[in-house]
């Protein structure tokens, strides 16, 4: 444990800078998007499930499609369950050279097998940033069995099972970090909550779990399940660098409860989410007890679809009881317990289902620990994401309703990193210092989904 912590805290500032930028790019690119294979399967337009005709934020109709295990259909036989997405991005970081590259090529295997079975898997080939090389990984996975149109106490009841690879990814309201990929890119050390998934060694796509869920009377959602981490050899085969291993997790329990109300012109939800696990990171090290508890609120004004406003707020608290209290290089001893706290607030306005502006405030903070979090022992991060995008297609009255193009401009800005607003890597006086704003980046991208 000590050596691991030391490795992290002694990393060179440049490496950390790249970590921040890599996280930034991940945030803007890996969110699950509208999947044209589903549009072909259902006859629906992209805009029926996603306010901005491209995703990832779901409309109430999109939520029902997800809850129904991706099995809804127009009844016109079996469709080819494949879709693709290509993304070209020009990134201009505040510090460092600009770059333009085909940043991501995705393959979706998505569709229904029967009225009860459906799901999707996303395979991502992402630009590594070096020498025109790409790394291919199995990204999101969500396979479902669902029993629909059941009755419980005379009310409609849906019962399902989801096998997925990221706690919270199967969230029907689609506001949890695993579903939105929206979270603060955190600093050095074991920062970020397990459910927040924005810190290093987070469980996204490196675990596998099964959850049983139910929807009662169209409004009450409940889900319980468990996860286990994939062996590092499997992570490696799936394309992941094992340095990002979330560790060996055991005795993991997950729950999610939400009240969702679809009023056709408006929608709101109130939810809670929780996870408890024992994590060994590294796998041969002592076991840390993690307990995450979060709540979330969401609201959508949908109206006649011309002006859509979507708000979401997620607040996740993580209590940690560490399995060891290592001594740092300066002789200080790590704390036996700690608390981390991730919050995201997002507001999106969409005009005519084609023009969207999203503004998000992301912050992470926690108990100061001089040994675990470097260089100041402070894990606090504050960032903002501002995205403007245009989607010319994906609506019923557009050239095509089952494929789309997305032109977007994104500005990601940091106002606090590693707990400070200046010299974020703590370099000695006289060396080149880095401010949070040096991690900022502006990017323009074009994505096509087909």
């Amino acid at each position, binding site marked *: 444990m000590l050596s691991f912590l030391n490795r992290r805290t002694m990393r060179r500032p440049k490496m950390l800078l790249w970590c921040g930028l890599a996280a930034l790019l991940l945030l803007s690119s890996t969110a699950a998007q509208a999947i044209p294979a589903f549009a072909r399967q*259902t*006859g*629906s337009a992209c805009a*029926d499930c996603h306010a901005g005709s491209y995703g990832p934020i779901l*409309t109430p*109709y999109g939520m029902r499609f997800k809850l129904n295990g991706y099995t*809804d*259909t*127009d*009844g*016109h036989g079996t469709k080819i369950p494949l879709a693709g997405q290509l993304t070209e991005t020009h990134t201009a970081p505040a510090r460092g050279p600009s770059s333009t590259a085909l940043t991501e090529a995705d393959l979706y295997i998505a569709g229904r097998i029967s009225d009860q079975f459906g799901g999707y898997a996303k395979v991502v080939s992402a630009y590594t940033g070096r020498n025109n090389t790409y790394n291919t990984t199995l990204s999101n996975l969500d396979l479902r069995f669902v029993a629909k149109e059941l009755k419980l106490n005379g009310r409609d009841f849906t019962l399902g099972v989801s096998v997925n690879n990221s706690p919270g990814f199967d969230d029907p309201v689609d506001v949890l970090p695993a579903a939105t990929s929206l979270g603060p890119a955190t600093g050095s050390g074991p920062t970020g909550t397990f459910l927040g998934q924005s810190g290093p060694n987070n469980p996204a796509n490196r675990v596998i779990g099964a959850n049983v869920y139910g929807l009662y009377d169209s409004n009450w959602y409940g889900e319980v399940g468990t996860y286990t981490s994939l062996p590092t050899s499997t992570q490696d085969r799936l394309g992941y660098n094992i340095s990002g291993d979330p560790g060996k997790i055991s005795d993991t329990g997950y729950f999610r409860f939400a009240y969702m109300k679809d009023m*056709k*012109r408006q929608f709101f939800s109130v939810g809670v989410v929780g996870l408890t696990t024992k994590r060994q990171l590294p796998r041969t090290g002592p076991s840390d007890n993690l307990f995450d508890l979060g709540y979330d609120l969401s609201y959508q004004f*949908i*109206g*006649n*679809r011309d002006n859509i406003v979507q708000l979401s707020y997620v607040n996740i608290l993580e209590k940690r009881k560490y399995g060891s209290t290592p001594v740092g290089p300066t002789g200080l001893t790590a704390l036996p317990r700690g608390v981390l706290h991730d919050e995201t607030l997002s507001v999106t306005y969409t005009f005519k289902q084609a023009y969207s502006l999203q503004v998000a405030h992301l912050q992470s903070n926690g108990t100061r620990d001089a040994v675990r979090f470097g260089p100041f022992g402070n894990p606090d991060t504050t960032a903002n994401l501002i995205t403007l995008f245009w989607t010319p297609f994906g609506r*019923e009255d557009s050239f095509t309703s089952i494929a789309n193009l997305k032109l977007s401009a994104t500005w990601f800005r940091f106002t606090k990193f590693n707990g400070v607003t200046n010299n974020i890597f703590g370099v000695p006086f006289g060396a080149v210092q880095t401010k949070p704003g040096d991690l900022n980046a502006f990017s323009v991208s074009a994505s096509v989904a087909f």
Partner: protein
Amino acid sequence: MTKLFLGLCTATLVLGWVLASPPARAGDASAGSDVFKTECSECHSIKEGRNKKGPSLFGVVGRKAATISDYEYSDALRSKTDWVWTPEKLHSYLSQPAKQADPGTKMKYDGLSDAKQLDDLISYLSTVH
């Protein structure tokens, strides 16, 4: 006198025909377009030949039920061989839960309780042909 008599007869006949006719629903088709977007558009298209989870509603007013050839209707609706989607029938059908109006239907709809919105919607659907 004869002309006056004929005129009165004609007026009476016209008035009688008007009174005997089903009450016209004074809906606002423009407002109905918004109601359609809110209530129906996720599952139904107004484009001819375009079926979603539900069948296309192009030309639905006046159409015999379950007659779009390439849509897979429920057995329940197929059995309603005497149903024609007149404004009155649509009004009755859409004002209550679909499962109540047509037990066995595939359609999942709780019904539209706002009478004005229903009239507006039906007026709008009447224009889609």
